[in-house]
Each structure stands twice: as structure tokens, then as C-alpha cells.
């Protein structure tokens, strides 16, 4: 057993960290969200004006709605890519497993920005994709919506977050005892039934963890819309950024941030609740 003094001593650094870099900023943010800006100066007067704006101005609702839609699309796409990939690696890759696993991980070492710019050169008007389509005579002029659109944002974020979705699903699939699959076959279930009745339910915690990752990270992303989103691909984080920057409306920016925070935390709790519900020993 450790002494009381020792326990309090070792808990100081983490407590300090959480306090100084998490709780204090959140408190400041919350305080800001209750203030207002008048003639370019922040007025320290408590009020709910910013939250009213948030709920009444359709612009914000629209961007928030679009953000959720993009995050949901990214989640769905990365699940559709990540799950089959994880399934293949866990059950059918054989000797290629190690290599393929590394290949999935390697992109994580490449800077997010580099990957963003790569998509710009691929999707742009004179980018690789358009040049290729014209070379094949499938199109005769550059297709505009590839770049600077919600489509581009979804594409880039899916590319970035698929490994994050893949990893927990792969871990969950690897942990399924193989005799269970034999038992299922033994009881008369073919591959499809075994998947629906055994593999999918047992990989649910990993699937939920991956989905939560992709959704929450996409929700707060502002670089992808900045690089490839254009005006129609603007997301809520870009609005916050401009409110804190050019628009100099910190209180409204803080209020929106609080909104995002509430959504994110609720989602994390929901994710954890569902994961626990699906967890088996």
C-alpha cells in the first residue's frame, strides 16, 4: 500500500494538467460565451444573447447541420471501408496480415496537411483526376465539384479517419475466439449467418469505438474544409475560427464552441454507454 502523502504527491501533476489546460480554458470559454461585444470591445456583462443568436440565426443552424451531415457521412464511409478491411485482415489475410497492417498504419505518419494538399492536387480543375477523366474522354472539361465541395471534405476526412476506425474494429475481430466460429458452423450456420449472428455482435464494441472516433473528430475538424471545402463545404469549426479571428466576436465564438462541446461530450457518453452494453466477457 502507498502512503497518503505519496498518493497526493503523485496526483498533483495530472490534476494540475487537467486544471490548467482543460478546466480553466473551459471555464474561460463558458464565461466568454455569457459576455457580449460592443463597438469592438468585450463587455463583461452576463447575458444569454449569444445562445439566443445561436438558436435563432438560421446561418449557424445550417452550418451545424451540414457539419453533422458531413461527420455522419465520414463515419459511414470510413466504416464501410474500415470494417471489410479489418475483417479481411483478421480472418483471411494469412501471411500477408503483418504487411497489410503496416500499410494501413503508415499513412498516420504522414502529416495531415500534406495529405490535405495531396487531395488538392488530385481533385483540382487541372488535377490528376480531371486530367485522367479527360484523357479517357469521359469528360470534356474539368469537373468543378470534385474540389471545394462537401464531397471533397468527406473524401479527405474519410481518407484520414479510416485507419482510426479500422484499428478498434480490427482489435475486436482479432479477439473473437476462433472456436466460436467453428461452433457456429457446427450448429449449421454458413459464413453469412455466422457473420450476422456471431462476428458482428462481438465486434460491436470496436465498431462503436471507431464510429465515435470518426464522428467526433470530423465534427471538430476545420483544416479539411479550409483546404478542400470551399464556401459550400464550410463547417462549424471554420465559423468559430472566423468569429475568434477576423470577426472579433469571441463571445459568440465561445457560445458556439460550448454547443459543439455539449454535442461531443454527449456523443462520447452515448458511445461509451453503447459499448458497455455490447461488451462481453
Amino acid at each position, binding site marked *: 500500500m502507498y502512503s497518503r502523502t505519496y498518493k497526493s504527491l503523485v496526483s498533483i501533476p495530472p490534476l494540475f494538467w487537467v486544471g490548467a489546460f482543460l478546466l480553466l480554458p473551459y471555464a474561460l470559454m463558458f464565461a466568454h460565451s455569457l459576455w457580449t461585444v460592443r463597438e469592438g470591445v468585450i463587455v463583461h456583462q452576463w447575458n444569454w444573447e449569444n445562445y439566443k443568436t445561436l438558436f435563432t440565426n438560421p446561418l449557424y443552424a445550417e452550418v451545424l447541420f451540414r457539419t453533422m451531415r458531413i461527420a455522419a457521412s465520414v463515419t459511414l464511409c470510413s466504416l464501410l471501408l474500415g470494417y471489410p478491411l479489418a475483417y479481411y485482415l483478421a480472418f483471411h489475410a494469412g501471411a500477408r496480415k503483418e504487411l497489410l497492417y503496416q500499410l494501413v498504419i503508415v499513412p498516420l505518419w504522414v502529416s495531415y496537411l500534406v495529405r490535405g494538399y495531396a487531395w488538392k492536387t488530385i481533385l483540382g480543375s487541372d488535377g490528376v483526376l480531371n486530367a485522367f477523366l479527360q484523357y479517357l474522354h469521359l469528360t470534356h472539361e474539368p469537373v468543378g465539384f470534385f474540389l471545394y465541395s462537401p464531397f471533397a471534405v468527406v473524401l479527405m476526412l474519410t481518407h484520414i479517419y479510416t485507419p482510426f476506425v479500422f484499428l478498434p474494429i480490427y482489435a475486436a475481430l482479432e479477439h473473437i475466439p476462433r472456436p466460436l466460429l467453428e461452433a*457456429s458452423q457446427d450448429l449449421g450456420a*454458413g459464413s453469412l449467418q455466422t457473420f450476422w449472428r456471431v462476428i458482428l455482435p462481438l465486434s460491436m464494441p470496436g465498431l462503436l469505438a471507431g464510429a465515435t472516433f470518426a464522428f467526433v473528430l470530423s465534427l471538430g475538424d476545420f483544416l479539411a474544409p479550409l483546404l478542400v471545402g470551399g464556401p459550400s463545404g464550410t463547417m462549424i469549426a471554420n465559423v468559430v475560427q472566423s468569429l475568434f479571428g477576423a470577426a472579433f466576436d469571441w463571445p459568440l465564438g465561445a457560445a458556439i464552441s460550448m454547443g459543439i462541446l455539449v454535442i461531443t461530450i454527449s456523443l462520447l457518453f452515448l458511445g461509451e454507454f453503447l459499448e458497455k452494453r455490447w461488451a*462481453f466477457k
Partner: protein
Amino acid sequence: MSASPANPPEQNTAEGATLLEVRNVSKRFGATEVLKNISLNIACGEFLTLLGESGSGKTTLLRLIAGFEQATSGEIWMGGERLDVLPPYKRPVNTVFQNYALFPHLSARDNIAYGLRVKRTPVSEISGRVEEALSMVKMQGFAASRPSQLSGGQQQRIALARALVNRPQLLLLDEPLSALDANLRKQMQSELKALQREIGITFLFVTHDQEEAMALSDRIALLRDGALEQVAAPRETYARPATAYAAQFIGQTNLLHGEIRGSIATCGALRWPCEEADGSVVFSLRPEAIRLSADGKRQTNEVRFRAAVRQQLYGGSTELLEVDCGKGQTLRVRVPACGRLTGEHDFVFSISDAVRVQE
């Protein structure tokens, strides 16, 4: 050791027609030959045990029948239908797995209903059959429990019910009792035996425990290094072991190495008349076949020898003696509990109890 069984399985040792036929099955994993040209018949309603040490190929043979492995050569037939070409989910057999392999996300009831559901059994029929299976293994009170809430013995019962509910023609049991502690194991053995008699399903049981095999089986197929050593009823295997290995593996024995010359068998200090061709021989003599001769007399057809007691192990109702018959020959003798023994004594055994075995 030849690849074919020393005692070919006799068709008339068990009642009923042949259910499963294993024909010349071999299996290799890379360079290792795990099963060598196995041929084995299982009769309807029989309790057949595959007995062998780990690595003898007994589990591989079971997995070939279940369909989890493919034979390198040979065929498996069941009721006039070729079994080894079917995928596992189309075979009319069910397996009780070594560590039960119960689905952790399903309740006991849903585990048992699994096989019926995947085969699209009418819903109205499922609940009745599940209840019946639960009561068969005396687990009615645990229908709603998850496997993690059940003890090893209870999980074992659910695994059994999950297999039996499908009414398989053949039930494969892969060391199902090996994870249980000794007492529970004994209890499950007798329940398993009673259950098998009651429902009349053919059991193919895999174990490395010779006592378990003897207690449960109608016949024992003894495997050694991927080949069948002997296939016979437990009593026959014990009384008439075909090989030295079989004699040693099933029960305890004394192996007497010696030779026959001019109708006299000589093994160390022991000699007796034996009407067989000259040559070197091995006899198996069970410790309990030797007894103390109080008056030093012997009947005809008995061998008497004098030996010094070197060690005495008390075992409750019996004593296990290690006796020295001279010429460096030691024998193990099991006698009824008789108090401390020291010095030299006279022992006798009947000539017919010295069973000639293959090396």
C-alpha cells in the same frame, strides 16, 4: 508398428448398423503426418472413445469428422452419404467443444436455440425443444444466464444441450470434461453415460484419460502417433492388450521381455511352459494378476516365484508392492491390503494372465 489396427474392429461388437465409416484417412500438416491411414467404423448408438496422448491425432480425427479440417486422403461416410465433401454446416453431426465455445453475447437459452434458428426451425417449435434440452441437462433455472455467469460445469451442460437440441445422428465430444475438477468430472461422467443411454445418440468421445475412457465407452480406439493401436471394448483392451503400448497406456502392467525356446517361455527369473514358436517375446502381466501364495503351493497352470519386497505403497483397499525376483527383475504386484510386508515371500500368477503382446 503397422498402420492397420492390431485388432481389426469387429462388426458385431456393438449393436446396430454401421453409422460412420472412416476409410483409409490420412492427414498431414506440412511434413508432419498426423493421421496414418485410419480406418474405423462406428455403430449406431455406440459410445466410442478415441483415446491417446496429446499429439496422437485424436482431436484431428474428430475435426475431420466435424469438417473443420480436410483429410489429405481417404473418405468418411455416414449412412450411405459421403461426409468429407460437405462443409461443416451441412453435416448431421454436432460437437461439444473442449472449452465449450459458448457464444458470450447470448443467454444460455439463445445459445441452445442457435442451431434451430439458423436452420429456420419454426418459432413455435424452438421454445419447446430448448426447454426440453435444458431439462435434459438439468439447467432449467439458468435459461436467462449469460455464459460468463455460469460455472465451468454449468457451461459444460449448456454446451451439451446446445449440441443435443439439434438431434444429431452423431455427437462429437472433444475432451469435454478436461476443464472440470476431479469430483465434478466423475459426476459428469456418470451423467453423460446415463444421458447417452437415455437418448440413444451415437457418441464419439475424445479423451487422454484412460480411466474416463474405460468407464464410459462401449469401445475404445487407442491412437498412437496417428495410427490405431487397438480398437476393442474396454474389458477386452484391458484383459487382452494387443501391444505393449496398449498394455501400459490402459491400466498398469508389468512388461516381461524374454524368449520362447522349446515350448518354454523364459523371462528373467520366471519360466513357464508356452506352446508357441521360438523367438523373443513380450508378455503383459497385470499387477493384480499376481498374488501372495500363503502356503507356497501352486496349482497347475500357475507360476510360482520367490521375491523380496522392495517397496510397499498403501492404497486403502489394496497395496502396491514392488518385488525383486532376482536377476535384476522387478515386478509390481497389487494385493489386498495386508499390513506391512518385509523380506521374501512366495508369489503366484496364472499362466493365462501373462498375455503375449506385440512390441
